[in-house]
């Protein structure tokens, strides 16, 4: 806030600035994670079980691997998996949401029933089931996230499209003989595209958290991958001997990343949503 006063920014500009800064941080984490090679986390038995220090910010594990590097690589992997899952999930919601809103009553009740179906089992249980069906690993987790996270966004898109379609100006355009495609392009898209973008952004945090959770349970990515969930579940064996840093730092980094995604999504919503836009 102080900063925005000094730079003489208004609410909109500072929100935008915050979004850009957060996005840069997230991109940096992802890129660094991908660019690191295996050497960064090679085991070095001379510095086993070291507490955090200037050499190793997050300490080292029982094989002497640098926990900071492992965390960055884990985050980058988790974000990547979350991203793919969230995009898959968003595609399902867009298709089903639009079908429900535009293709008549029967289609609508089928989609509504499907939404109820997927909401009727706890997310984590369906994730475990789907991961099991795919025999674990990357494929299982991505399909799991894509198949479990779409209902809420599909609901939003369905009601948005329905609402826009019933608005006076759309009705007038229709009576004036405009084509369906024209109405979709000129009236409906401008309303729902921002909603979809925000919806996807708000899906990420959930997707990332669930990826980490399923991997932590041992049903997600394989133990050889440097994922956050793996790091945390391995750390459990060493907690009782007092190696708290193994769990603390990776977890809090995951928390911060998830919170950032949440914040970006929320800020963008404020910029897009007409009710907030003028504050």
């Amino acid at each position, binding site marked *: 806030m102080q900063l925005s*006063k000094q730079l003489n920014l*208004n*609410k909109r500009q500072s929100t935008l600035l915050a979004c850009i800064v957060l996005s840069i941080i997230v991109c940096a984490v992802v890129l660094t994670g991908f660019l690191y090679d295996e050497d960064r986390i090679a085991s070095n038995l001379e510095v086993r079980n070291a507490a955090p220090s200037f050499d190793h910010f997050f300490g080292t594990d029982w094989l002497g691997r640098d926990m900071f590097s492992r965390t960055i690589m884990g985050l980058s992997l988790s974000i990547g998996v979350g991203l793919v899952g969230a995009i898959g999930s968003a595609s399902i919601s867009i298709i089903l949401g639009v079908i429900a809103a535009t293709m008549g009553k029967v289609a609508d009740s089928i989609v509504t029933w499907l939404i109820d179906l997927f909401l009727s089992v706890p997310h984590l249980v369906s994730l475990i089931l789907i991961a099991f069906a795919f025999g674990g690993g990357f494929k299982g987790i991505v399909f799991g996230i894509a198949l479990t996270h779409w209902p809420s966004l599909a609901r939003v898109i369905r009601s948005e499209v329905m609402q826009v379609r019933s608005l006076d100006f759309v009705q007038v355009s229709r009576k004036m003989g405009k084509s369906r495609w024209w109405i979709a392009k000129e009236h409906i898209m401008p309303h729902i595209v921002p909603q979809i973008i925000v919806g996807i952004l708000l899906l990420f945090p959930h997707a990332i958290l669930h990826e980490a959770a399923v991997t932590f349970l041992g049903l997600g990515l394989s133990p050889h991958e440097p994922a956050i969930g793996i790091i945390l579940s391995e750390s459990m064996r060493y907690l009782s001997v007092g190696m708290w840093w193994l769990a603390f730092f990776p977890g809090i980094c995951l928390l911060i990343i998830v919170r950032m995604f949440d914040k970006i999504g929320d800020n963008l919503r404020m910029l897009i949503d007409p009710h907030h836009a003028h*504050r």
Partner: protein
Amino acid sequence: MSILEVDNLSVSFKQYTSGLRQHTQEVISNLSMELVSGEILAVVGASGSGKSLLAHAILGILPSNAQTSGKIRFDGEVLTTKLQEQLRGKEIALVPQSVSFLDPLMRVGAQVRTSVRKGKAKEAQKKVFERYHLKEEVENMYPFQLSGGMARRILVSTAMVSGARVIIADEPTPGLDSVVIKEALTNFREFADQGCAVMLISHDIESALQVADKVAVFYGGTVLEIAPAENFEGNGDRLQHHYSKALWRALPQNDFTCEFKN
């Protein structure tokens, strides 16, 4: 005898216009008037011109971003925030606009009983229901079950049982049919006849004139003139202000017919 005096009252709001710039908007400026016991003062003006804020300012229930200046005296004593808190509901009662001012999840009988300040609540409520011809089972109804007329009578009841000496009625008649309006206005006349001072805020000059003793014409955040109700007659020549005349002539039975006569 005057009970409530409003002296040079101004109400303004702080608002953000664009970005971080703050802007003060004056809604009521330099308004003066007095309420006399046994009389009805009608405050008339266009809808949305800030008349309700006058009522809220007297009661001290304005939103927190509002600022007031000027003085309000009750029985000769200057109303401070603290005094306002004590007098609210006890000496000064509000009769609000519509049923939305009743708690939707509380039985209306209970809501009337919470307004009683002296004596037994239950008895007072029974008496007031009888007086306003509300059946006994109404007591156990919820606000959404009331008809427009019943809601009106419940709202008046809350003021009646409070034993207040000043009654402020804020747009008590919109959206009601003429029978109910007539009934509501009669209720206010009764208040005045008992010795209360009544302030009747309304945009409906025609119905207000049926019972008011004096009319304050509200425009642009202040009172243009306070005229006895008798002055509103004929072409409105006895009214001083252009706006008052225009308001009077705009009524269907006045200017409409006048124009055709000319």
